[in-house]
């Protein structure tokens, strides 16, 4: 069972997750050891166990996915193949895992931008059709270039966002209440120009509910290291830990954004904001802070209630 339907009187829900595993950047295998894959499998188990029926994975290769399918609860999922070429030296290192008992994959499109003859990966777009009928769920997975390779102020970041926004616009033109989730490691913060201006992703849910073209980005909340009380552990400080960070080691590069249709729940699914956050596993937290570990991202999760 992968959909959350704990009690009969509770509203069934679908969990969604995104995780940059750091196992295989650019989908090239060879970086991760078996121990790393075993640890990553434990994360898969946690995500599936917590009710995630749609999981976007990043920095994974075919070898990693085969390992997860054989050694984790992801074994009951269908997975797209990572590694399709985005350019001569660049591959899409993202893939979508989904519960085939809930969704059928009806379309998969690679989105790339080309400047000066070089191609850059913008996103992979997936259309998932609910098995029990109803409107499609569109999922757009992105892994944008690291700031080491493309600076935070490089204008191409806004162009990437513009192209992704065009894809969202095309979906909204076909259906203004389209159910769209964008998730990824954008290597940009929620307040970056690419996210706010290029993608038109807002921190303001009420505003996003009243302006149908806005995307809502709940991950603005992960920008502070303050803990209200000792029990408060919502990983608010960020999703990505960079040991050599200058003014901060934490960054909020992993984000999810939701279309108007998923805020109003007018056509089937509605965002449950309380369960949309970074996923905290104490054992993984230790690895994030360990310089010898390759893991440096927290998974992020969201939940969609059936309206």
């Amino acid at each position: 069972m992968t959909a959350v339907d704990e009690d009969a009187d509770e509203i069934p829900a679908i969990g969604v997750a995104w995780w940059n595993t750091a196992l295989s950047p650019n989908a090239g295998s060879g970086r991760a050891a078996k121990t790393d894959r075993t640890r990553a499998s434990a994360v898969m188990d946690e995500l599936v166990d917590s009710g995630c029926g749609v999981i976007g994975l990043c920095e994974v290769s075919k070898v990693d996915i085969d390992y997860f399918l054989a050694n984790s609860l992801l074994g009951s999922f269908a997975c797209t193949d990572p590694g399709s070429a985005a350019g001569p030296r660049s591959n899409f290192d993202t893939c979508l895992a989904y519960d085939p008992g809930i969704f059928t994959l009806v379309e998969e499109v690679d989105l790339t931008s080309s400047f000066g003859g070089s191609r850059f990966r913008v996103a992979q777009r997936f259309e998932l059709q609910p098995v029990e009928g109803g409107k499609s769920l569109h999922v757009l997975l992105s892994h944008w270039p690291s700031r080491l390779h493309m600076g935070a102020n490089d204008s191409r970041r806004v162009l990437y966002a513009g192209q992704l926004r065009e894809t969202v616009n095309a979906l909204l033109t076909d259906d203004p209440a389209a159910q769209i989730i964008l998730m990824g490691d954008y290597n940009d913060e929620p307040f970056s120009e690419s996210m706010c201006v290029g993608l038109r992703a807002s921190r303001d849910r009420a505003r996003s509910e009243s302006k149908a073209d806005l995307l809502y980005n709940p991950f603005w909340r992960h920008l502070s290291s303050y803990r209200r009380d000792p029990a408060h552990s919502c990983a608010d400080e960020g999703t990505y830990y960079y040991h050599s960070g200058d003014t901060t080691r934490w960054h909020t590069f992993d984000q999810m954004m939701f279309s108007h249709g998923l805020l109003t729940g007018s056509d089937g699914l509605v965002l449950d904001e309380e369960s949309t956050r970074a996923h905290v596993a104490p054992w993984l937290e230790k690895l994030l802070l360990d310089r010898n570990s390759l893991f440096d991202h927290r998974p992020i999760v969201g939940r969609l209630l059936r309206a």
Partner: protein
Amino acid sequence: MKEFEDAFQFGMNAARAAEFKRREISGVLREFSDSLTLSTNGALGVDLRTEINRKSNALMALLDPTEGRKQWLAVSIKEEPSKYETVAEWRQSAEGYPCTVITAGEEVACYDKVSLQAELARIAASPQMGAVIMRLWGSSEA
């Protein structure tokens, strides 16, 4: 007044720049078509075709002439231009670039001439385009 003058000047410069880019794109497409014509002994060419989606909203179509219309990159028979097959969907910004070329499973936004040329070369070398060429060339000789 000076602000308005600057704004008008800015707008005219932007229009000139867009016109330059659109001409550049037309030139690339013409070159692409001419190459196909040469490769098929004058039988085939490439042009942009507009098709109307019959499922589009009729009222919206009255308000917006682009409603439900899609542009396609198409290979056609020179002697019989009504005979054509589409090879990719084509979207073009009002400013010229980006030109977005959409084929099965892939959508590429080209932001300059070099990128557009590279993308068209990729399409030209694809088995899908090859199959279309063989089909239409065969039927043009029949």
